């Protein structure tokens, strides 16, 4: 069985059962005020040039400012002020988005207090220690940490086991166990050892630790434009060029018509036409997308990974913890012929009292809930000899020294119990064998219960049906994914029969049974060869190659350093179900970009109807018919268009930050809905907005 099947604590899986919708975050007005200084700092042309659309607006603002100083008028100053506001609003959007990340970064930075490390020289040959600063630790150093001390750097536990408080990075107050070997060996610098003593091999260079990277990520310091953002920027830049030329070429045409335009009007027309709305909000959308992941305790190592998540075609999901609850549970007691169910339940319970495995506990729970058998404490039963499970016997049970002789109760795999019964002079009936086969065929695990009283021959009492319990709501979740065009593949170490039964019950599209890490890798490669993008979760070191190969590899925070390095996202909650949410966030990010681009371009139609008649109705009165909004005067019309253009940026900041509403559905219905809202809406809204602004602006002297 693949080692990825790490049991997930029950309390986490329960929260994961609730289908999460991508929710909105609220825009705090305080954030806007706090972001204002940053927004003004971004007016530096060296910063602005990175955003060609808004850079054009800034240059336009400078031009109108000079013009307004040279030839002051109310109109010139009104336009100038609103153009500057347009630029500032755009910067504000970005600053607010960054501000939210900065707040998180500050919290993280507090964990980065200077720690002293106890470095082991020549470990494991000697136990000699030396005290060094945490920052002096290098890759491959060994350090020892004892209860109450802070772990000085990222690494893997190589000796010992300890409980660690990781609340600094995960926000989860319950301590976690970290132990050498296995898949729970990774520790993070800045977290605190609560008990015991561990030796950790340092796995990161100073300044490149996990926390350092987290800080850089949430602050947006290492933010690079994603491929899709670049493509959109190219389109926006080319639209900007077209409109610049359109307006530049308009002046000689206007002069010929006898209506040469002022610089203020020409700049206004350019700004109204170029896609300022999306240009202003584009980077904020990207930052906010990363931020939404951070809010869900997922760290994406790059924006590229978030985008790829939206494109995923195939999800590889580990069965255990993702699709089913962590462990098999007893579902039913099936008695052998001539045995009372109560008797079977009683025996089953007895044999499981000392069984501390989740399966064992679930038998006790079932006996209590279904058959009313009170769980007996171990000490309650005198003369009881507990027979623990061993790999040799593959059975567990109890021997009770009763008056009528020794009562022996055993439960275990069918083969082992059959052997035990036969050895003790009994036979296992064909009916029991049938029950066993039936359960196996249904994908469950049969445990046979047998007993022997005194010197009487042993007899099989019946079978306990252990089954994997599919988490609630998973079937609906997979249906949604299917509607989104995403194929789900369940990965399990179970045999094909069991895997098939669970796959059918859970409603996944496909499954990979008896999966080894190599099988997983081969599956990913096969899907990718067909041009598909694959997402998976993993935590073990042997998952690392597959995590690196997958387009979206989400490493569990509980996993090894190797896994975390290989994946391009880390889930701090270590909840594999979150992969589905990550896909939704990726999609939402792209949809928000597309929706605002559509909105921005559609807005231009109304602006033309405001500005063109204002420019030329004096020479061609017929063009006055285009003033369908009945705007008050040329000056009020142009001012209103520019004010609308600026206000719409502010109005859309919340949308840009929280993303547009996303419901999992197929492409056609998504498109229909978004074209309806942002395309048609984008055509209509500015007509109303500009008219409303004009109703106010027309009373300002100088704009009438």
């Amino acid at each position, binding site marked *: 069985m693949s080692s990825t099947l790490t049991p997930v604590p029950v309390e986490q899986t329960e929260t994961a059962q609730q289908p999460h919708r991508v929710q909105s975050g609220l825009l705090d007005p305080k954030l806007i005020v706090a972001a204002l200084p940053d927004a003004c700092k971004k007016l530096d042309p060296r910063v602005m040039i990175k955003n060609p659309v808004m850079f054009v607006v800034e240059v336009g603002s400078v031009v109108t400012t000079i013009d307004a100083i040279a030839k002051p008028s109310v109109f010139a100053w009104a336009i100038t002020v609103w153009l500057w506001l347009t630029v500032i609003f755009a910067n504000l959007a970005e600053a607010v988005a960054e501000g939210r990340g900065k707040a998180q970064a500050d919290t993280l930075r507090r964990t980065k207090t200077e720690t002293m490390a106890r470095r082991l020289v020549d470990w494991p040959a000697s136990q000699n220690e030396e005290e060094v600063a945490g920052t002096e630790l290098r890759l491959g150093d060994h350090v020892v940490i004892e209860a109450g001390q802070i772990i000085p750097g990222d690494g893997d536990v190589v000796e010992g086991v300890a409980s660690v408080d990781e609340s600094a990075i995960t926000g989860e107050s319950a301590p976690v166990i970290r132990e050498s070997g296995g898949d729970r060996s990774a520790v993070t610098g800045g977290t605190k050892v609560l008990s015991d003593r561990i030796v950790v091999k340092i796995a990161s260079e100073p300044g490149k630790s996990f926390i350092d990277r987290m800080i850089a990520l949430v602050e947006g310091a290492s933010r690079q434009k994603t*491929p*899709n953002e*670049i*493509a*959109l920027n*190219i*389109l926006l*830049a*080319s639209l900007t*060029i*077209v*409109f610049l*030329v*359109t307006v*530049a*070429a*308009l*002046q*000689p*045409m*206007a*002069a*010929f*018509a006898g209506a040469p335009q002022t610089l203020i009007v020409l700049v206004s027309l350019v700004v109204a*036409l170029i896609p300022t709305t999306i240009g202003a909000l584009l980077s904020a959308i990207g930052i906010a997308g990363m931020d939404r992941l951070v809010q869900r305790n997922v760290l994406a190592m790059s924006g590229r990974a978030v985008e790829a998540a*939206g494109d995923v*075609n195939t999800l590889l999901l580990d069965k255990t913890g993702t699709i089913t609850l962590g462990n098999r549970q007893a579902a039913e007691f099936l008695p052998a012929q001539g045995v009372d169910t109560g008797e079977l339940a009683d025996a089953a319970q007895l044999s499981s009292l000392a069984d501390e495995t989740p399966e064992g506990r679930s038998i006790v729970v079932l006996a209590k809930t279904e058959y009313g058998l009170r769980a007996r404490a171990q000490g309650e039963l005198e003369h009881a000899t507990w027979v623990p499970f061993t790999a040799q016997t593959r059975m567990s049970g109890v021997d009770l020294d009763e008056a009528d002789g020794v009562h022996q109760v055993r439960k275990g795999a069918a083969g082992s119990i059959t052997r035990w019964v036969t050895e003790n002079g009994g036979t296992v009936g064909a009916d029991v064998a049938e029950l066993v086969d039936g359960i196996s065929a249904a994908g469950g695990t049969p445990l046979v219960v047998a007993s022997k009283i005194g010197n009487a021959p042993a007899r099989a009492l019946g079978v306990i049906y252990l089954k994997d319990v599919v988490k609630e709501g998973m079937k609906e979740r997979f249906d949604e994914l299917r*509607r*989104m*065009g*995403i*194929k789900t593949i369940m990965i399990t170490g179970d045999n094909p029969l069991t895997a098939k039964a669970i796959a059918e019950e859970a409603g996944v599209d496909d499954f990979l049974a008896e999966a080894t890490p190599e099988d997983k890798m081969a599956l990913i490669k096969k899907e990718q060869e067909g*041009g*598909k993008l694959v997402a998976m979760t993993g935590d073990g070191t042997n998952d690392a190659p597959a995590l690196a190969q997958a387009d979206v590899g989400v490493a569990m925070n509980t996993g090894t350093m190797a896994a975390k390095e290989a994946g391009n996202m880390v889930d701090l909650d270590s909840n594999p179900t979150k992969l589905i949410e990550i896909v939704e966030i990726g*999609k*939402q990010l*792209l*949809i928000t*970009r*597309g*929706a605002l*681009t*559509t909105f921005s*371009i*559609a807005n*231009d*139609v109304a602006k*033309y109807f405001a500005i*063109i008649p204002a420019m*030329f109705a004096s020479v*061609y*009165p*017929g*063009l006055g018919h285009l003033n369908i909004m009945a705007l008050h005067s040329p000056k009020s019309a142009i001012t209103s268009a520019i004010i609308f253009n600026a206000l719409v940026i502010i109005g859309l900041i919340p949308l840009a930050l929280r993303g547009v509403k996303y419901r999992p559905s*197929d*492409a*056609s219905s*998504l*498109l229909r809905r*978004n074209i309806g809202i942002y395309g048609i809406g984008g055509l209509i809204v500015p007509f109303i907005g500009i008219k409303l602004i004009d109703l106010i602006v027309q009373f300002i002297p100088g704009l009438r």
Partner: protein
Amino acid sequence: MSSTLAGWLQALALVGALALCYRPLGDYIAKLLTTTKHLAAERGLYKVIGVDGDADQRWPSYLRSLLAFSAVSVLFLYLLQRVQSHLMLSLGFKAVNPHGAWNTAISFVTNTNWQDYSGEATMGHVVQMVGLTVQNFLSAAVGIAVVATLIRGFTRSKTDRVGNFWVDITRISFRLLLPVSIVLALVLVANGAIQNFHGFHELSTLTGDSQSIPGGPVASQEVIKELGTNGGGFFNANSAHPFENPTGFTNWLEIFLLLVISFSLPRTFGKMVGDNRQGYAIVSVMASFWVASAALMTFFETHPAGVALKAAGGAMEGKEVRFGLWGTSLFATSTTLTSTGAVNGMHDSLTPGGGGVAMFDMMLGEIAPGGTGSGLYGMLILAIVAVFVAGLMVGRTPEYLGKKLGGREMKFASLYILTTPLIVLIGTGVAMALGGERANMLNTGAHGFSEVLYAFTSAANNNGSAFAGITVTSPWWDTALGLAMVFGRFLPIVFVLALAGSLAQQQPVPATKGTLPTHKPLFVGLLSGVVLIVVGLTYFPALALGPIAEGLH
């Protein structure tokens, strides 16, 4: 039969005939572009020109072949005009002046066929046949070859080869354009178009004046003029001339010819990408623009403003009585929506609305259905822009026919949609800013401006029709419009080929339910909207000062 009924019948017959040809012609072109078999004659030709007919080229190599071929064509056509006086059948015409010859050479090689000359007063039969008519075939073939590479970009994967230019152009010329032209030239001759090597006949008219009647190999040039969406007339009057376009039937046939290849190419596209529904979606967009434009144009021409025109029952000025309002409106719509530019009436005499429609048709980028090949590649580029924006709105990296539209693809698509508007607007702006050039304008006000705007729109979009009204034979106009034609033709071709190369290298992404469907009515509507908005936003201010100002009172 009332003229309205006749008009309806013409239009419906046209739609019916085009629909009938859609599948067979489209499939036939797809086959000739994809088959690996060479005809014996073709193999011989490849041997002579030293081309390996089985080896495909990378896109830069394809582009180099195309540009070199076009450059040689321009040079040849230029020299032919310059030495005209030494050629046989020159009818005594002198050599064409240098700037005129350069303008004409470029015009015919770029499939524009803008004519700053009057055919019967400038060109001898050899120049018309060996020079101009040959380019009518080749420039049309080049357009189809370019769209073939773009389609191959979609169909091929993980390759840098987009086809073989020499093979493409040979097959398109010899398997498609030539056979159709030969058959239909005979039909035109049978209906009264002329085909001879005569010079001028001096005749006395009824009123006693003398008239000079020209002869020439007209029908052979006429067919390819329409079929290859060229538009350069043998005579100055173009398809209004009775020797080029004698009857109402030939008029209908010529409209059919100039539309038929471009309207069938979407089928070729659908066939080659293995999904005919994709072809239907594209042709639906083309057809809806054509229908809307034809309806608007006909409406404007049959409902003119002004007492005199109303009394005449329509704007008959500049129109041929034998074609009528409907026949002229259909022709004008079709010639401006393709890159043909042939005219059977004076576009300058169209009503302001009709003239505006003609101009807007060209501004759309001639994509409905557009020039041979160029119409489809123009439409596919707009489809890519539409898919990009819409694809984002469905939450995936946009992909068209399985190919992802990333930065590289959007760069070439954006450059493509930038090019023509920039040429038109900068050209018009410069012309209006230069006082001396404006002096060549015969009209003032909004109409005078429309004429200049029309000229640059026509040249940059490689249409070739004219509003006239300006004297364009001056060195400045010849040079400026020549440059507009060269850049308007070859820059977009560079971008299309680069895009084709980029697409061909990609591995296709399988379509899922999350993929934006590009064959459904929703996408047809979306693409139409993108076409309208992109074009409308770009040209609206200029149009407002021209036809809109003229039309709104």
